[in-house]
């Protein structure tokens, strides 16, 4: 006998999936937009994009000053942060559902990602 998903479970799943897709689309569009803007700024101002990255702390101030390299790198950072953002969205959704197992799973994932970020600082 096949297991059918209950309507409540299906509705919650739909909400979670819709939110994740929204975060992915937004993150991707912002990241690509920043990368294109970085290329454009470089072409217009003749600002050189180096082969090496700037320190993470310098990227946002540099991007705000429309430095081509930092605008482009901000795009890369937004792209890399997008998967972490959908884990946060999943965490909030599971918290609302009081699904403690998956709250723990999402927290564990965010802890690993935080460790990864911590190693970069």
């Amino acid at each position, binding site marked *: 006998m096949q297991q059918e998903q209950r309507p409540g479970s299906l509705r919650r799943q739909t909400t979670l999936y819709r939110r994740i897709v929204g975060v992915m689309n937004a993150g991707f569009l912002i990241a690509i937009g920043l990368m294109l803007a970085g290329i454009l700024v470089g072409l217009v101002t003749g600002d050189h*994009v180096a082969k090496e990255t700037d320190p993470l702390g310098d990227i946002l101030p540099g991007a705000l000053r429309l430095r081509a*390299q930092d605008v482009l790198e901000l795009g*890369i950072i937004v792209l890399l942060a997008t998967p972490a953002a959908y884990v946060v969205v999943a965490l909030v959704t599971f918290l609302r559902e009081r699904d403690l197992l998956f709250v723990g799973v999402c927290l564990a994932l965010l802890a690993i990602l935080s460790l990864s970020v911590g190693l970069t600082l």
Partner: protein
Amino acid sequence: MLGLGGGVILVPVLTLVFGLNLDVAVAASAIAVVANSVSGSGYYLRARLTNVRLALILLVSTTAGALAGGLLVVSLPEAVTKSLFALLLLYVAYVMARRRVPAAPASSVEIVLPPDPYRLAGRYQDVSVNEIVNYVPHGLRIGIPVSSLAGVASGMFGIGGGPITVPLLTLVMGVPVKAAASTSSFMVGLTASASALIYYTHGSVNPRVSVAAVFGIIVGARIGARVSGRVHPTRLTLVFVVVLLLLAVSMGLQGFGVL
């Protein structure tokens, strides 16, 4: 087109054709794999092909593995990494060569699904056979440790881990192949992003190469999606296996200092 995320081809091409250092190629590939996952997973999520709950559980060990792999690759000599990558390419070629067209899902037959204590059951409509497919993944005790190996491979080689995750999900955990490919595609984004941050620390990220790789992989994926419907899958697989074998030999020879 082949469901491998692009990194398997991108890293050897960047090193062998463009002469980039392996760490720069791996970093660019990991960033491009994230872009491919983030841009391509939306369709599969909307179609309910992706099993998010299963992905999140496996991602704990996969992401930890990716972190370890990222730390390992920046400390290993490049020759060793290239030799290991050559072995990985041979493995992927072997998996691809043995790939069979999956049988139509037997969802019309009344089957007894296993217990589902973690509510990991998946359900989607397979439009190719116009059937609703129900499944319950099993074998988490094997799946979790093995998926950490996919993470290590992803972290070391910037490939995403799909060549290990998809066979794991289908052969060990009983996930239908379409759901497995979609779930794997979703997972590689987070896995690759964890290791890409390590490459940032190590100074392996070349912004110019990485952005070119991102646009290249996105355009390539769109072209692949259009072309794949017109090319016979067997012929496509054969060409891919030959290319992988050539890349494996070249990479292996570089690893041993012959090239």
